[in-house]
Each structure stands twice: as C-alpha cells, then as structure tokens.
C-alpha cells in the first residue's frame, strides 16, 4: 500500500519536471527514432533506384541515335538537349549526368563495330552516380538486344555466349541491406528505455538525498523496502511508457517510408513490433533496477548523472559489438541481459524463427540480474550512511 503511495507521488512529482518528461516522452520515443531510423531510411532511399519513375536525361547529339532515344523514352527516360559546357555543368551539379553520342555512333553501329558513347557523371555526388547507374543499366539492356540481333543476323544462337547461368541464392531470410536497419531497432528500444527512466531514477534517489527530504521520509512509520520499491515502481512506469511510445513511433516512422525498397524482408509491422516489445519486456524491469541501484549509491544528482552517463555505454556496447564482431545467437549468449535482447529483437525484425529455449533463457537471465540489483538497492537503503 505504502509502496503505491510512494510510486504515485513520484510519478506526479516527476511529470511536473520538464527535463524528466522531455527525456521520457520526447527524446527516446521521438527524437532518437527520427534521427537514427529516419536518416537510415533516407540513405536507403537514395541508394535504391525506382525504374518506374520518369526521369530526364541530357543528351548530346540526340539526333544521331533515334532508336536509342526511342528505347530510353520507352523506359521512362525523357531526353533534354545538353547544356553548352557538359563537363563543368556535371561537375558543378547543374546537370546530374550527360550522355554524349559521338558523331560516328550511327556509322559504327551500322558497320557492326562497337559504337562509342560517353556518359559524363560525377561519382562524388550521390545523386549523379545514382542517375548514372540507372542509365548504365538501361544501356546494358539495349546493348544485349543489339548483341542478340547481331548474332542472329550471323546465324548464331545468342545463348551460345551465355556460358554460365549464375543464380544467386541468398539463404539468409533477410537482405544484407536490412541488417544494419534491423540492428537499429533494439538500439532504439533499449536506449529510449534507459533515457525514459534516467532522470526520474536520479530525482527520486540522489535528488531526494540532495533536497534533504529523505531524512523526514525515512522517519515515517513505513518500511524502507516500501520506499525503495515505490521508487522502483515509478521508474518502471516511465521506462515502460518510454518503451511503448518508442514502439509506436517506430511503427509510424516505417509506415511512412517504403520498407520494401531496402531489399530483403525486414519487418516493422504491428505484429513484429508487438513481439519485439514482449521479448524486450524483461529489460524494462532490469533497466529500472539498474537505474535505481546505481543512483542509490551516489550522493548527489551530479554524481548520479556522471555514473549513469558512464553506464550508458552498457546499452550501446552490444550494438557496436554486434556491428563489428559477428557474435552469433547462442545458448551461451542468451542469459546475458541486453545482449540477448539485442539478438532476439534483431532476429524478430529479420523474421527469423527464435527457439523457445532462447526466449526462456533470455527472460530468466534478465530477471535474475534484476532480482540481484533490487536486493542490492534495498540493502543500500538500509545503510545508515544513506543520510550523510
């Protein structure tokens, strides 16, 4: 009962604190996904080419190759006349790419020789190289058509020159492109959970000591365990709220962007995010316990911020670890809090099947760690030194 009174008071108290509310409701759930997820989605969008979209291409000597122009036109490329100074126009980004048809193009084609074409592009410019890739791909298709015609003209089966038939069979259920994006999800989840409870945990423990409101509180007829668990409960509420809002904002973010373009089959639909949230839910308990315990050791809010700031490395560590070293999901890694959730969430987004044993081990390991931390926190609150 007292536990809930403490918890309710801490929630009301901290909802009035702008800093706490900003980090719990805006920073983790809105700003982080926008900054990280948004920029990533945008870069994927930049790399992928939409062949159905109509684009314009500047061509020098367009009248020298009417059939090629006709082919480009039927492939959604409209032809513009070329700028006067082709080189500098492309270099300074006024034109993305320029296709130059040489004067002897038509005669070479007729003679059955390689017909000269120059594609002016700026490889340092992402948009220019993207446009160049699109045009090159189209030109290759055109080239193959002409090759086939030339061979047939000489009575040779065009398939003679296709000596190899290479089929790429990617057995991972994801596309390689999606890997990085998939690892973003657990990072966002865990980071915003930590940020969600960060300031509340500091305010209710170290802050209470600093304000010297702890001494009268502890002289009231209630057990110190109720005090600790009340504060823990309040932190848990904020951490959970932050986690839920993050799931919601990731869902919205990826609704707005076409995920199919990123290749592979990563999913950010409602069902996947619900599963991800459930798999991460033992972490809510763990992170809250970690925040409360660490800030209970410290004497002032400043000290607590320093310690917890260093602690921020922990949620980030698995992210970088998994980026650079390919730590595989194994039965050994599953009982480790944070690391296991990273792996489970990544697998969820990639649509891999997760063994029940892994889920159970991950939850059990995290809950045991939580219990140890909470035991430590209530021990810290029984110390007399708490008041000095």
């Amino acid at each position: 009962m007292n536990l809930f009174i403490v918890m309710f008071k801490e929630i009301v108290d901290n909802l009035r604190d702008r800093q706490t509310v900003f980090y719990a409701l805006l920073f983790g759930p809105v700003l982080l996904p926008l900054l990280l997820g948004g920029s990533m989605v945008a870069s994927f969008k930049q790399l992928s080419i939409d062949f159905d979209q109509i684009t314009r291409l500047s061509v020098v000597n367009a009248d020298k190759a009417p059939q090629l122009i006709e082919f480009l036109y039927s492939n959604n490329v409209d032809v513009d006349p070329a700028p006067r100074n082709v080189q500098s126009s492309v270099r300074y980004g006024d034109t993305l790419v320029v296709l130059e048809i040489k004067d002897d193009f038509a005669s070479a084609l007729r003679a059955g020789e390689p017909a000269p074409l120059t594609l002016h592009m700026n490889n340092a410019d992402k948009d220019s190289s993207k446009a160049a890739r699109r045009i090159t791909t189209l030109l290759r298709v055109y080239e193959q058509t002409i090759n086939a015609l030339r061979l047939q003209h000489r009575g040779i089966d065009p398939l003679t020159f296709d000596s190899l038939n290479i089929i790429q069979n990617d057995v991972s259920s994801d596309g390689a492109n999606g890997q990085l994006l998939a690892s973003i999800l657990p990072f966002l989840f865990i980071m915003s959970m930590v940020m969600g409870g960060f300031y509340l945990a500091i305010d209710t423990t170290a802050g209470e000591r600093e304000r010297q409101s702890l001494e009268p509180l502890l002289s009231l007829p209630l057990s110190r365990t109720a005090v600790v668990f009340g504060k823990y409960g309040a932190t848990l509420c904020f951490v959970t709220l932050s986690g839920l809002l993050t799931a919601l904002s990731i869902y919205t973010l990826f609704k707005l962007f076409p995920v199919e373009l990123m290749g592979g089959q990563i999913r950010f639909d409602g069902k996947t995010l619900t599963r991800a949230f459930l798999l991460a839910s033992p972490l809510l308990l763990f992170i809250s316990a970690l925040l409360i315990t660490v800030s209970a050791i410290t004497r002032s809010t400043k000290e607590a911020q320093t310690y917890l700031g260093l602690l921020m490395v922990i949620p980030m560590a698995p992210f970088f670890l998994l980026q650079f070293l390919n730590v595989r999901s194994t039965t050994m890694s599953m009982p480790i809090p944070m690391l296991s959730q990273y792996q489970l969430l990544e697998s969820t987004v990639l649509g891999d099947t997760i063994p029940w044993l892994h889920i159970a081990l991950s939850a059990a390991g995290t809950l045991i760690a939580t219990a140890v931390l909470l035991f430590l926190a209530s021990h810290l609150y029984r110390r007399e030194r708490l008041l000095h």
Partner: protein
Amino acid sequence: MIIARQLRKSFKPASRLSGKGKRAKRIVAVDDVSFDAADGSITGLLGPNGAGKSTTLRMLATLVSPEHGHAIIDGFDVQHDVLEVRQHLGFMPHNAGIYPRLTSRENIHYYARLCGLDNRQSQQRVGELIEQLSMSDFADRRTAGFSQGQKTKVALARALVHQPQTIMLDEPTNGLDVMATRGLRDIIRTLAANGHCIVFSSHIMQEVAALCDHIAIISNGVIAMEDTLQGILQRTAQTDLEDAFVVATRSLQDNALDTNRS
C-alpha cells in the same frame, strides 16, 4: 515522553581524510547523552554547532541506531519497536526537505497517506493543519520559491500530520525572521499546552531561554547539565543563560581533564 540513557554514536571519517593503510580513527559524534523530556513541556537541547544535537535526534527518530545506551519514546524502545516509535514521533529535521514541485497541500497529504490515513481522513487532517498553522494563503501553491518561514510551516505540518504525542524539531527557527519565529513559538507553546512532549534543538541561547521549560546543555557529544532554566542559573551561579552555558561546558571540560589525569 522521551527517556534517553547514555546514547553513543560514532562515524567513520570520510575516506579521503584518513591516512592510507592506517585504520582510521572513528569520529565520536555523541559520546554520552542522557536526558528526559516530559509530556506537556518544551525541552530544549542547547549546544553549539557540531555538539551532537542532530545525531542525538536522529538516534531518537530511529534513523540511525545507537552503539551504546538506549532510549524510550512513549514506552517504545527506539532500537526494537521502530515502527511504533515512528508512529508516536513527529520529526522535523533541520532542513525543511519538502518537495518543490508539489504544493503545500500535496506535500502534507503525501505524508498523511504514508502514515496510514485514507484519502478522506487525510484531506480532512490536511485541512485542519492548514488552518491551525495559518497556511491557507499558500496551501495550493507549489513550494519552489517559498520563503523559509513558509517552508518551515509546511515541514512542521508534515511532522504533525499523524498526530504524534512526541514532537522533535531540529533547529526550527533557522533562517526565520522575527515575526515567523514568534509565530512558530506560539504554535510550539500551544502544542505543549495540549499535552504534547516537545523537544527543540537550538544553538541560540535567547531562543531556548524564551521558550523552554526544561533545558539540556550538550557539548562535544556529552550532556553537560540538565535542569529548568532557573535550576541551571542557580547551579552555575549566573544570571544569564549564556554565561551559565559557558560555566557548564567549562566544568565539563575540567571533569574530562581530571579523569584523564587520574
């Protein structure tokens, strides 16, 4: 009612100050404190800064446990019947320690709920206290930016919320202006007249002389003298509490020197 007998408490010094490797000597905050505080009267714990007043009150408030000696509050032992002691004791530490983002009413209400009052009882009790301590002007304002007098009133209301028989106030007049101090004195007198046992710590002589029925002089963690104001003046043959205080603490030092020599 408070009965304290031979209380002693020492602390480990801050680790940075102690020499490396050597076992640090413990700092004795309270060495030997015995005094009585009766119901219906105001007992002053008078002593300079660092004399051990706060530590003594903390031991009585069950916040730290004494190494030696014992204390009984309203028939309950501070070491064994912790929750009963807290139920009978209203403690106001020397900093108000109120929550700045809550209003006065919410601050008091929180403590009322924690002391076991239900929502309705609590609202009623908070209303009574706001009236009793004339706080209605700032009852529903957040306490950030309150004057020291207003903060003290909120903290006092919080300490009184569960209608404790015994009330301990640690330097309550610190930082109060004349009018606020007078107001607080009136409140304390009324509480004593209603039969409460009041313990009041201070380092200000006039304060204690003006208010207290019974005075315990504390110095270097030891009670130097304990009597009524008249009794202390007679025993030290002085006319003024300040002079009496000097004489009482000096005789204590002399005694200590004598025991060291022998």
